[in-house]
């Protein structure tokens, strides 16, 4: 069966510094995966490489059978490969509603935008209450909501979430987990980066442990690690702090 996304031997980095050293992974159709691993080992860089914010220096990325390596970001978005970035990366001087409306920018996202907007507001009522607030004045968690909301507005065929629960309250984290689960069930495969392995396991089918810019281990739901094991995963296999 042909994978939906196939990342093969990808190398990438910033300037002279290489971060990904030949990383490979794949997602089957209707499958979701999770990524975890120590900080600074290249998870975000991988997602950026897939969405073409970072150009790979070697390797290939295939999405739905087409080679998308080195395509421009708009083309990737148009293909439905959507990346909700990590952290507070928003348009500071835009209002919430403006931001969400704009997020349905690509051609494929412009159909059904209104419906998705309603969905986003239903998922995050907070955003609906604050439609005219400037993004830069939002609280940490509110920003996170807006960021995910934007990704949803893009009509993803494959959704990449980079630490989506960062700074969310336990309740919201749970709700978001449920919502992401719904999205995934509705047929949108996910790539989720998270440090909370339990959370990842509840959402995805397989996990990859990323260290030093390569995949060092693959874990499936059946072999879910316990606490001890998790600690070993971080410390044991070469990851030192």
């Amino acid at each position: 069966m042909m994978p939906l996304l196939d990342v093969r031997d990808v190398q990438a980095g910033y300037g002279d510094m290489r971060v990904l050293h030949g990383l490979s992974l794949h997602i089957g159709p209707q499958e979701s995966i999770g990524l975890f691993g120590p900080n600074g080992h290249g998870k975000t860089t991988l997602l950026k490489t897939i969405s073409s914010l970072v150009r790979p220096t070697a390797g290939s990325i295939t999405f739905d059978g087409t080679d998308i390596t080195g395509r421009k970001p708009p083309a990737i978005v148009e293909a439905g490969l959507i990346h909700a970035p990590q952290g507070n990366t928003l348009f500071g001087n835009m209002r919430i509603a403006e931001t969400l409306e704009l997020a349905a920018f690509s051609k494929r996202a412009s159909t059904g935008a209104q419906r998705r907007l309603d969905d986003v507001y239903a998922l995050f009522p907070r955003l609906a209450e604050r439609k005219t607030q400037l993004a830069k004045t939002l609280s940490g968690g509110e920003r996170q909501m807006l960021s995910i909301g934007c990704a949803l507005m893009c009509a993803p065929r494959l959704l990449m979430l980079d630490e989506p629960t960062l700074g969310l309250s336990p309740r919201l984290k749970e709700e978001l987990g449920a919502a992401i689960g719904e999205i995934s069930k509705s047929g949108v495969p996910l790539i989720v980066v998270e440090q909370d392995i339990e959370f990842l396991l509840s959402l995805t089918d397989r996990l990859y442990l990323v260290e030093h810019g390569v995949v060092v281990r693959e874990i499936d739901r059946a072999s879910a690690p316990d606490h001890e094991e998790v600690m070993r995963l971080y410390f044991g296999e070469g990851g030192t702090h």
Partner: protein
Amino acid sequence: MNDTILEVVDASKHFAGLKAVNGVSFGVTRGEILGIAGPNGSGKSTLFNLITGVPFGPTSGEIRFQGQRIDRWPAHRIARAGLARTFQKDAEFPDLTADETLLICGTYNGQLGRVAARTRSDEVLGLVGFADTRRGIPSRNLSVYEKKQLMIASGLMSRPAVLMLDEPASGLTKPEIESLDRLLVAVNASGVTVLLIEHVLSLLLSISQRLIVLNQGSVLAQGNPAEVVRNEAVITAYLGGRKQ
């Protein structure tokens, strides 16, 4: 009264109609670790802002620190008086190394000379477990955890009375959270009162001696952490259906 080191009296912060913090009052006992929780946007970071004056003070209300009213002081003076805070969004001085960062924090906040600052740097870096080999690297090249360590260390340079941490565990891996846990306990044991905003419950509940939950800018509940998390209102507003 004597052991209340910081007191917030009826403090409010309004943004064009939005009451981000609305009539909050509480006291902090010298030497405790006080946890602060609450839904997103409930005003936790704003509360820190108005206490420390960075970047703004309260719209109304009083802040007392060690018996003095500080709510009209310029922010840098509040910092020098012994209130050290960290930021939710990672902050660093990207061009400065850890040593340089600590040097200026020691100079301006702690009125330390170069030698004294160096000695104190060694102490605080040891305390937060910052690797010696990383001391000469510009901060922008540090890892997330190292930046957090440095931000805490820089706050400790001046031997502050109170350390205020805004979601220090966010974005950290499990092992890192566990070291953070140990680190904060050690800092507290060295005599520093700690205020901790955190959504990572494992950390929050493991070290807080008291917990305040904010909701929509007001105090929803406060008291013993174990009791507070059983409070119905707190569960609905903040914890959700998760079993404790």
